[in-house]
């Protein structure tokens, strides 16, 4: 195992636990690894209490870099900002709240051998049944739609080489799917089990909006992975299907009108047929716009990633 510098990035967003305690726990958990470490706290917006606690820690002699974003940008951007200032070749992201038992973090470094990214699954879990079911369901849907076998993307503990973030850009809520995007770029990703921290307690029930957002995330990842480079294939298929359905309806109506003398003007079916017909063309046109974007930017969008040239 190398002795590369490890940059530990802790993004602080809405949810955080006692900063000083958690810092000490992480620090003790990482004592037994041989690599030198640096801590980077990224404050995603204004968190005066966290900031003052971190400053206090700095005064007691701890080396902590504090990156304070001017407003709330979301965890993906916070993460990216952290990587930007990181000096290490290895990046370890840790959540600002209790998720895993810190004393087991060394295991991640052992598993990095031969991989580009090690993510962890909180297992065995010690929180409520509801939270566990929630995680299960989320990953079942993910597996069903996207076909990926990760079992705990909600866990923020991830160790990876800096090149991974150089080649992937995340925005919005995509930080959650970093392992998927990394896998798609050809990096080797390994999931290991780390016991969940007993301090991560309480059943978190989110609003319906949050669950909807997760679902949309899964769908957007699906689109991103499968169709970004061929939008017309995606839209064209949906568009043609709708178009053909609408066209068939209109044809049927026209035949009835012409050969059987059924009056056409007042039939509601006409409206449906016309709607589908029009919709089909619109969807297709959208696909065409997408394709034009790719076509005119094909020279900038690299479809491949090169590991090395010799």
């Amino acid at each position: 195992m190398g002795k590369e510098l490890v940059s530990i990035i802790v993004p602080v967003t809405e949810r955080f636990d006692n900063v000083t305690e958690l810092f000490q726990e992480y620090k003790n958990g990482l004592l037994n690894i041989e690599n030198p470490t640096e801590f980077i706290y990224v404050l995603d917006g204004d968190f005066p209490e966290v900031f003052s606690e971190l400053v206090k820690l700095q005064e007691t002699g701890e080396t902590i870099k504090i990156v304070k974003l001017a407003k709330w940008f979301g965890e993906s951007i916070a993460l990216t900002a952290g990587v930007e200032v990181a000096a290490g070749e290895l990046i370890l992201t840790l959540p600002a709240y209790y998720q895993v038992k810190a004393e087991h973090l060394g295991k991640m470094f052992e598993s990095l051998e031969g991989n580009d990214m090690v993510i962890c699954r909180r297992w065995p879990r010690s929180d409520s049944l509801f939270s566990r079911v929630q995680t299960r369901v989320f990953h079942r849907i993910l597996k069903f739609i996207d076909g990926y076998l990760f079992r705990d993307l909600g866990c923020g503990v991830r160790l990876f080489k800096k090149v991974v973030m150089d080649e992937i850009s995340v925005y919005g809520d995509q930080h959650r799917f970093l392992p998927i995007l990394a896998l798609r770029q050809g990096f080797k990703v390994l999931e290991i089990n780390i016991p969940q921290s007993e301090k991560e307690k309480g059943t978190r029930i989110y609003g319906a909006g949050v669950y909807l957002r997760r679902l949309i995330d899964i769908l957007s990842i699906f689109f991103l992975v499968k169709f970004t480079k061929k939008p017309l294939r995606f839209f064209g298929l949906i568009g043609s299907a709708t178009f053909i359905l609408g066209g068939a309806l209109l044809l049927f109506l026209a035949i009835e009108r012409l050969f059987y003398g059924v009056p056409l003007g007042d039939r509601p079916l006409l409206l449906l047929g016309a709607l589908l017909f029009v919709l089909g063309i619109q969807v297709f046109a959208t696909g065409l716009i997408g394709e034009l974007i790719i076509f005119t930017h094909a020279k900038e969008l690299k479809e491949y990633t090169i590991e090395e040239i010799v």
Partner: protein
Amino acid sequence: MKLSIIAPLYNEEDSVKALYESITGAVKPLGYDYEILFVDDGSKDNTFEIAKSLSQQDEHLIIIKFRRNYGQTPAMVAGIDNASGDVLITMDGDLQNDPRDIAELLTKINEGYDIVVGWRHKRKDKLITRKIPSKIANWLIGKVTGVPIKDNGCSLKCYRANIIKNVPLYSEMHRFIPAMASITGAKIAEIKVRHHERQFGESKYGLSRIYKVLLDLLTIKTITTFASRPLLWFSILAIPPFIVSVVAFGISVWNLYSGSNDMLLSLAGTGLLFAGLVIILLMSGVVCELIYKTGNLKHKSLAFLTTNITNSKN
């Protein structure tokens, strides 16, 4: 003039050495400066290790290793992007093409052609699963794109670097490179080349998914005809719905005032829907104009790649 020979490799550990030797044997006597680019498309076997050891003995050989398997088009694009030659030659990595044909390709380039494609006129593949589908596909591609090439699937092709480096290639377009290149006005020639049976391993890139080829073909046809004048094309597309809209709405209104005092609501609704479509199509055209303007693909600069400027001597 410098040559770059590009070959994508995917699990070709048996043939990589033979390929390297036959290319070198064919290209060295030609007397040009040259480089060979092997693109390792995420092979799972020892292809990269073998190729790497070869490259350590020969500075002409460059190996590009992908992180994972991306497919034949990205592999070729990577080779094209990293090539430094003035003339680029692409070929299969499985020894089915014969590097001895490179000399003939170059003769055509020297005659003034921009792209020379190979035609495997005595193809050594299975008849039903490979040759017949490819015949149909080639006929269709020729008809639709207007670039009548007998064998689009042949990887042995030769390009002037400035042309191929400026043609947009993505998705699975390696089959359509001549068609894509025709937007630059490139002069294309086709010559007969040798074709060998596979010596090692199984065929990896097949014409297996025909519907994908068809969809890609449709995409390319649409995009190449409409890319430079999107507003015009969308406007033309908007004419039929406009007529439908006027007629449908007209009949319905005429019916209202011609005594029956009864408006044909469905027909009126249909008229409105089509009117909406007209507006959306026109707006899509405007958006596309905007994309084209801000994009970095300019037909103007593409035209100059192949423009022949002659000054009068006096």
